[in-house]
């Protein structure tokens, strides 16, 4: 067992609410790990803590055994820890091509280069081509981001993260709100993410969770409620009671 990403007794309090309650968690190398839990369980908060958007009240986070609790968000990205957002966080004034250009340039360490026109390096454009093809964005590269079909926006949301060459990818409800017609394309690209990327997937859709994940962690009221293989979790009566039994969420 070799964990890439670990937390130790992680706590986040918002005033009186404990959104993350002493969570000790490990994500294995190459994982396909799902994080589930009812609305308001603290799943997004957990991702925010992992990526440095929020500061934990207490506890530690480590990446490859290195303590990153006080590392800045952008530096964590450069270490290979990248996330997507539950609610699209795109660049409204830019085309998908420009947005990918920024992400790839940044990843290649050219983000502070002001002398060269963006996209004049073959190493940059080759990588954009690769990402855009993987996420089926080639045909919409020069459209306004806000005009894209929702499914495409969702693909761009993941593509931007993928352009950062993550070793650990945290997906916060990637399929949320995507209409049925566009769903297959999205699920397929998620299924085809490279094996060497360790993935933590937050999802309410149980079909997606069961088809994607090898391991599942259940979070309830900020507390780790259960942890195990897909079979263990789907047969756990307590989980069925508090979560699966409640039917559809989201």
């Amino acid at each position, binding site marked *: 067992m070799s964990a890439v990403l670990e937390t130790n007794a992680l706590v986040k309090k918002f005033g009186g609410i404990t959104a993350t309650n002493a969570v000790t968690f490990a994500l294995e190398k190459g994982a396909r790990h799902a994080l589930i839990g009812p609305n308001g369980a603290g799943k997004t908060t957990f991702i925010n803590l992992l*990526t440095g*958007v929020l500061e934990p009240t207490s506890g530690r986070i480590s990446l490859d055994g290195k303590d990153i609790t006080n590392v*800045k*968000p*952008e*530096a964590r*990205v*450069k270490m290979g820890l*990248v*996330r997507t*957002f539950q609610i699209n*966080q*795109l*660049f*409204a*004034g*830019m*085309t998908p*091509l*420009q*947005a990918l*250009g*920024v*992400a790839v*340039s*940044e*990843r290649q360490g*050219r*983000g*502070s*280069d*002001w*002398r*060269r*026109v*963006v*996209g*004049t390096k073959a190493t940059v*454009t080759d990588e*954009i*081509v690769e990402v*855009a*093809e993987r996420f089926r964005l*080639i045909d919409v*590269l*020069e459209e*306004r981001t806000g005009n894209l079909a929702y499914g495409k926006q969702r693909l761009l949301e993941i593509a*931007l*993260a993928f*352009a*950062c060459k993550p070793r650990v990818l945290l997906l916060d409800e990637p399929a949320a709100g995507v209409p049925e017609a566009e769903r297959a394309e999205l699920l397929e690209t998620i299924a085809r993410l490279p094996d060497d990327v360790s993935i933590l997937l937050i999802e309410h859709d149980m079909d997606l969770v069961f088809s994607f994940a090898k391991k599942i962690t259940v979070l309830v009221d900020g507390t780790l409620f259960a942890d195990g293989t897909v079979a263990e979790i789907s047969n756990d009566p307590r989980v069925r009671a508090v979560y699966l039994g409640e039917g559809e969420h989201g």
Partner: protein
Amino acid sequence: MPSKAAVSRLSTLGRWRLAEILFWLAAAASVPLLTEHHLVLTEIAIIALFAVSLDLILGYAGIASLGHTAFFGAGAYAAGLFAIHVTNDPLLGLVAGAAAAAVLGFATSFLVLRGADLTRLMVTLGVALVLGEIANKAGKITGGADGLQGVFMAPILGRFEFDLFGHVGYVYSLVVFFVLFVVARRIVVSPFGLSLLAIRDNPLRARAIGIPVNTRLTAIYTISAAIAGVAGALLAQTAQFVSIDVLAFHRSADALLMLVIGGTGYLYGGIVGAVAFKVLQEILSVWTPQYWTFWIGAILVAIVLIGRQRIGNGVMGIWARLLGKGGAA
């Protein structure tokens, strides 16, 4: 491969459009053709450069400032004092103006970046007010309310002497403006420039793709300050005098107004706005000398109320599309 072709279009952002080339040819043509207007054209070139420097932070990085003239003024005083006390070579004076403004920009960037929009407005305003008061009180150095006298410039490159009619001053200002414009234009289509757009659009996501947001904002704030400083230095050198007015609030407000008129985020907005502003000022101040600020205010209110979108489909929209705002940025 079609994918490659699609992606290769990213670098066309940097390409000069026909309208841009025509614009700069027209600007060059004003040298031989509009000789009797060189003094006012010099003023336009200077305030346009100043507005362009403001556009770099406002239009590209989303930093609103009410005190950008702090850097214009710092550049003007630095260039004036440099000419008096060190050397009166014009180009070295520009460097001095840029350096002084850049240092001030870098130092104050940390105050400015701390807050949200309203805090930024107040902090930038405050910095400029403080500087204005310092210039006023430090009369021994700055000449106080009487202005800094005795700025005599040597010939440019040792060859071109400033003349009374402002011909040499205009060519000088125009060339400096053009050079800095080319630099600014390159900056905004570079990976650095695009990362600023990303920050402007969504700082949360910008961080999440690894962009060091504060470092980038400090960098552009400093660059913008330096360019504003050069604009101030140009004024000091061509007027051979520094009035305390270089630090006055109206200069910051005028630059914002120019960007409101011309549009932000495509660099030419500052130029279009500067020309429109100066022309309006000339016309209105002849027509109603006492009330020109009233009218300029009324026009501002009209522009904002009618909405740039609707105007955007009219005259300004044509400008913007020709000069490249379009879908690009």
